[in-house]
């Protein structure tokens, strides 16, 4: 141990070991079941005292044998070596080898058990020393117990909290190559050679745009490469970064983390009709290369920026300022800021059947955790109920950050449309929704009329004056007709369906209103204004109101504890600007500045997490893996960075040059490491020494993401339309899924109806409608993540259902026919058609053997299709749904209309084209299924 207290000199090391190590472990892991609850002592074994240990329990008398660990069941249990004698029983509580060793030494030392005062002396002395062999104490705002506050962290577990350090890079070295080479050192193998230029242009184009290069672009690039490869490469990257597709690609990475969806999930899965404005904000921000610190602050506190701006612009304060908020009178810049706050509305949330305070807590917990994961790669959720088990995050800090959001209220706010926003399709969209809405309302009215006719009759028969449904509400049962009078179970079921439809379509009309899914500051609004269906900014807010923030013990609203002020994560060691020395991590109480202060602390250049986290994410999307392998968790349990010096160097560089992304992409992509081939001359050695490629000696191929796959199919078939932003696009999805019933509260959700025209449907996947309760089955299969959890890294396992989708789905049939039509249009004969198909799908020419085989294949398929009848395809304009009526338990059915199909332009179908085109479609399908198409090298 090496730590001795002067007064304790001569006392056994065992006593010290017990006080510092063994006793805290007993307390943390054993006492709860073995002694703390005298009513319920597991196995009748009380470990609270030495006597209890020596006495033993039901199954063992030999719990502690002084001096003899091997004979002590206590020791044998904690080693987990014997079946059925494994303590503590949970994997998570299992002791580490070092801890087991401590027990062993203590028992060998005779198992001394000093009293509390003596133990205290040992611990006090120990805590006075910041760094020992056991690790270091980190200052925080303090845990719920001294054990937590003074616990020690292994230095390597604190890597992400250390200040960013920029190491020197020798001149003429590319910093990325320098750090990667240095780390590989003399591993015994070199880096892979540079990949071929046609591989590189495909890699770079997918990385930056999520699309393949055009065949003509490839030709030009290869020519340029011939004359000056360095210049050709720089020019390529510049061109790609200038493309508006860049934002569409990189926004997707952000939306994965932020959990973008167009609906709220849970019971009702209500639409978030204006979420698309936030999606477009993110795309815009990437395209304009918005500095990351601005991007962060806008998303967390854009509304507070707008408030500040209004104050300055109009000199308005208080009530007058709130009027501006209420009426949504904002400039372009202010509107942009407000749209950004959509970030705070991204989590799944619904108020159905949850009491208002709990619904509010669910929202705030979600926001706090999301902020931690997204910006700080920190798992705050753990600290909701207790001090963090592994990281220096006291539950106090959790509730201080929670307090920073305590006045944050969700609302659909009026915010004028921006000039840059795409308002296309509004008229058609409104007409469609109006149609659906009026259908629902008419059908509902029909039921209500039927009910009221029966009610009228009921009153008449009793010679009583008729009273409408509202007026008779309060009458005693005997004096009014029964509920749903005149309606049988079918009518009742239909009434509820139509009422829910009415809510759904009314809500969807808001898509076309100048609204945002945003937030504002104020007290909790009355409950009726705070339900998921309709949330609005209160007309008047109490401006003096200050929320009272407390620590909820165990995360329970029923157990409010110590009061806290708003604040930040103390373990980062970065004080809030302007805070006093007494509590440097505290945020001012003023409600209207809390989030802004938190956001500014997050982007403080001294904050060790923020810039590192985003730089790591950028690296991840170029190389498949982050330098730190858990981009959402930089804590003790996340993977440690493989190249910490490189991560720091890039982070420092990023901050010093304005926190901009495009510069970082250039820096990374200009490295030799980025241009490495996936093939390595010493693969045998590499596989043995570094199977996971931690040292980055070669490029690791990756499969197309779900979005890249769909976008590329449309791109190759020539169908992709490049509209920018706007209300969500509805592509065709598997028809069985589109029409399948899906339960929501009271009803079945309306069917998925695609956009009417191909040019409206066939846009990039990021613009498609994202419903939490209804994932697009094709994209889902190719690992598009669920928007209910922040996704730090996509999966790409090859599974059989993918083969079904790629071979048999209508989506693929349609894309193949479209490509076949393009081949026939653009190429005169079969040889040229095969050539063009290869160019468009694989970006290369077929070799002679492929040419021969595949021409033959197309000819054979042409013969085959000449004999095959093709079924007519049709789209239903209405469907009949059936549902169990809750009140009667009986099944009823109703009609749902699908007006889109009344005037629909389908994609070209197999039945619309001759056998040769179908045969060429077979060729297209073949290429779309090939590995070469699906992987990027």
């Amino acid at each position, binding site marked *: 141990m090496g730590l001795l207290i002067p007064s304790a000199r001569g006392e056994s090391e065992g006593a010290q070991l017990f006080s510092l190590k063994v006793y805290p472990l007993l307390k943390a892991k054993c006492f709860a079941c073995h002694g703390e609850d005298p009513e319920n002592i597991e196995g009748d074994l009380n470990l609270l005292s030495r006597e209890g240990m020596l006495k033993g329990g039901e199954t063992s008398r030999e719990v502690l044998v002084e001096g003899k660990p091997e004979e002590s069941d206590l020791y044998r249990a904690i080693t987990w070596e014997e079946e059925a004698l494994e303590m503590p029983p949970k994997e*998570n509580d299992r002791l580490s080898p070092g801890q087991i060793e401590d027990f062993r030494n203590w028992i060998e030392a005779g198992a001394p058990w000093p009293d509390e005062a003596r133990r205290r002396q040992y611990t006090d002395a120990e805590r006075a020393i910041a760094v020992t062999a056991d690790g270091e104490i980190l200052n925080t705002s303090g845990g719920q117990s001294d054990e937590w506050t003074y616990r020690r962290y292994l230095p390597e577990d604190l890597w992400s909290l250390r200040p960013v350090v920029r190491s020197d890079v020798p001149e003429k070295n590319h910093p990325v190559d320098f750090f990667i080479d240095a780390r590989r050192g003399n591993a015994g193998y070199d880096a892979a050679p540079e990949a071929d230029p046609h591989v590189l242009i495909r890699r770079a184009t997918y990385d930056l745009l999520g699309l393949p290069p055009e065949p003509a672009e490839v030709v030009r690039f290869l020519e340029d490469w011939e004359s000056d490869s360095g210049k050709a490469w720089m020019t390529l990257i510049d061109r790609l970064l200038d493309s508006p597709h860049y934002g569409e690609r990189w926004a997707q990475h952000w939306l994965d983390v932020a959990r973008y969806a167009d609906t709220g999930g849970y019971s009702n899965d209500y639409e978030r009709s204006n979420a698309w404005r936030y999606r477009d904000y993110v795309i815009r921000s990437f395209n304009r290369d918005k500095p990351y610190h601005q991007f962060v602050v806008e998303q967390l506190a854009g509304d507070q920026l707008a408030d500040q701006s209004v104050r300055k612009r109009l000199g308005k304060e208080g009530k007058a300022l709130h009027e501006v908020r209420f009426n949504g009178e904002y400039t372009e810049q202010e509107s942009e800021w407000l749209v950004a706050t959509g970030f705070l509305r991204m989590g799944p949330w619904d108020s159905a059947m949850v009491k208002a305070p709990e619904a509010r807590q669910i929202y705030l917990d979600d926001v706090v955790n999301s902020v931690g994961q997204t910006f700080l790669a920190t798992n705050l959720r753990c600290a909701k109920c207790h001090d963090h088990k592994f990281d220096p995050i006291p539950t106090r800090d959790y509730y201080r950050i929670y307090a920073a959001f305590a006045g944050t209220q969700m609302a659909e706010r009026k915010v004028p449309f921006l000039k840059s926003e795409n308002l296309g399709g509004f008229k058609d969209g409104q007409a469609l929704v109006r149609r659906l809405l009026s259908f629902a309302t008419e059908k509902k009215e029909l039921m209500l009329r039927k009910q009221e006719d029966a009610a009228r009759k009921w009153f008449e028969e009793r010679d009583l004056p008729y009273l409408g449904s509202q007026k008779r509400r309060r009458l005693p049962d005997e004096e009014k007709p029964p509920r749903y009078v005149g309606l049988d179970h079918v009518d009742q079921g239909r009434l509820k369906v139509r009422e829910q439809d009415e809510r759904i379509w009314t809500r969807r009309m808001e898509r076309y209103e100048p609204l945002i899914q945003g937030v504002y500051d104020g007290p909790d609004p009355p409950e009726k204004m705070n339900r998921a269906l309709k949330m609005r900014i209160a007309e008047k807010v109490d401006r003096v109101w200050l929320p009272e923030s407390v620590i909820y013990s165990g995360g329970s609203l029923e157990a409010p504890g110590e009061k806290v002020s708003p604040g930040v994560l103390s373990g980062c060691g970065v004080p809030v600007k302007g805070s006093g020395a007494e509590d440097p991590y505290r945020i001012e109480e003023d409600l209207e500045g809390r989030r802004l202060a938190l956001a500014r602390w997050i982007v403080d250049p001294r904050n060790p997490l923020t810039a590192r986290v985003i730089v790591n994410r950028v690296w991840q999307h170029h190389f498949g893996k982050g330098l730190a392998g858990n981009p959402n968790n930089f804590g003790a349990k996340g993977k440690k960075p493989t190249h910490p010096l490189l991560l720091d160097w890039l982070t420092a560089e990023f901050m010093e040059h304005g926190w901009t992304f495009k510069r970082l992409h250039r820096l990374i992509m200009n490295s030799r490491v980025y241009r490495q081939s996936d093939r390595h001359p010493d693969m045998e050695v590499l596989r043995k020494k570094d199977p996971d490629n931690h040292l980055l000696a070669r490029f690791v191929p990756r499969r197309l993401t779900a979005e890249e796959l769909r976008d590329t199919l449309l791109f190759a078939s020539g169908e992709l339309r490049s509209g920018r932003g706007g209300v969500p696009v509805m592509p065709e999805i598997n028809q069985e899924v589109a029409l399948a019933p899906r339960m929501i509260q009271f009803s079945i959700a309306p069917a998925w109806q695609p956009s009417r025209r191909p040019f409206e449907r066939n846009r990039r996947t990021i613009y498609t409608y994202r419903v939490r309760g209804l994932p697009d*089955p094709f994209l889902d299969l190719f690992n598009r993540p669920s928007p209910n959890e922040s996704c730090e890294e996509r999966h790409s396992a*090859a599974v059989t259902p993918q*083969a079904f989708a790629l*071979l048999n789905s209508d989506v693929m049939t349609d894309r193949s026919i479209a490509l076949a039509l393009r081949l026939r249009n653009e190429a005169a004969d079969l040889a040229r058609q095969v050539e063009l198909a290869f160019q468009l799908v694989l970006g290369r020419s077929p070799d002679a053997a492929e040419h021969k085989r595949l021409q033959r294949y197309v000819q054979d398929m042409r013969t085959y299709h000449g004999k095959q009848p093709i*079924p007519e395809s049709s789209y239903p304009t209405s469907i009949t749904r059936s549902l169990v009526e*809750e009140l009667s338990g009986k099944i009823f059915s109703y009609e749902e209309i699908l007006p889109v199909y009344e005037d629909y332009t389908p994609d070209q179908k197999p039945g619309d084209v001759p056998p040769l085109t*179908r045969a060429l479609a077979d060729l297209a399908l073949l290429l779309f299924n090939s590995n070469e198409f699906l992987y990027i090298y």
Partner: protein
Amino acid sequence: MHRPLCARPTSTPGTRREFLYGLGASLGAVAMSDLLAKENAGAGPLAPRPAMHEPKAKACIMLFMEGGPGHMDTFDPKPKLNQLHKEESKLTQGLANGFKFFVGSPFQFRQVGQSGIEMCDQWKHLADPYVADELCNYRGCQAESLNHPEALFHMNTGSRLGADPALGSWVTHGLGTMNENLPGYVVMTELAMPQGGPGNWSNGFLPAHYQGTRLRPEGTPILDLNSPSFKDRDHLRRSLDELAILNRKHSASHPDHEDLSARMESYELAFRMQMTVPGAMDLKGESDSVREMYGLNNKETSSFGRQCLMARRLVEQGVRFVQIFSGGWDSHDYLERGHSARIQSVDKPMAALIRDLKSRGMLDETLVVWTGEFGRTPDNNKRGGVYSLGRGHNIDAMSMLMAGGGVKKGSVVGGTDELGAKAVECVHPIRDLHVTLLHLLGLNDNKLTYFHAGRYKQLSQFGGKIISEILG
């Protein structure tokens, strides 16, 4: 777009591993590479694994009554409640505000079988002593979420958030499956998917192999399983051969890229699965008397009956975990009609399932569980100003049935207060139920863990207790 269903071939499943699973969530996923690895190494993610201790049951069939059946209207009689019918209630459960009144059960109760287990008179087939004496009625479970999707998630995945692995996923993760030609974890739903959808049978953070495979009640059992109708099997074979040639050439220039061969093999599996999946779902081989027993000849019971019969067939063929959802139990009003219709729709099929398993000697090794996501309140609020005879959501009390696989036959465990408002005897949270079910299947919740996001995750989240009173 309405393709005629392809004729379903009736070939018997081959002996080779021909099927790949986890086609759940909306269709699921299974890593081929693992399966191939298995072929090489002899142990894949779905290969059967030894239990952690001597198991009582090898498979589990869970009948999930979505909406929450009223315990006092099914298996937990409350005479006192009947006396208070329509009198004012001051209970503070649930969300309802305003005037509330007690609602007596519209049903009569009686004791059945030798064990004298209680059930309401709507249960006609389940009351047969041959079946009833197999049942264990547990009345002590408490839920935590008042809202359907969260409560469904909790009962199915141990977490209210709906992003964690389902019970069935944990079980297949722990035990693998006994027949790798079929999915290890199968889910069947009625008419519509339950609230929360695929989140109820998601593999969460576990590998995709353990995702529940939803066999669709109508249309294609698995999406896009069949080729378009104008492409026959020869067409597919020829195309796959061409594809293989293309892929082989590509692989030759990327010999170190391991994903490639996995993808190639997945196409061959797909080719074979087109035959085996419909075969597994075909009930033609079942006798008329079996079909009659499960209620297949009756409109009210045919849907659930078909699924119960499928469940028996799947378990017989080695499927580890089958879950069937039956909706429509959320009787806030007109409970008499609602519950009696729902009971009618499941009574005969459930009884047939237990009888069938028992007579085939399978019940001892099959754990059957019947439950909802929560119970119902003894009282109701006025709806539309009227005394509506229904019940609200109750997280403090519920009733479930278990049979077979190691549960105490013919027993009632736990109890609720005299009104059925709260469980008061042998009270346990959902996590304890989960721990108990795992225990019966030979798994220890504390050891059935998966390292994810910085900690060892387990179904019960933080550990739980075995409800030993349930064990036979």
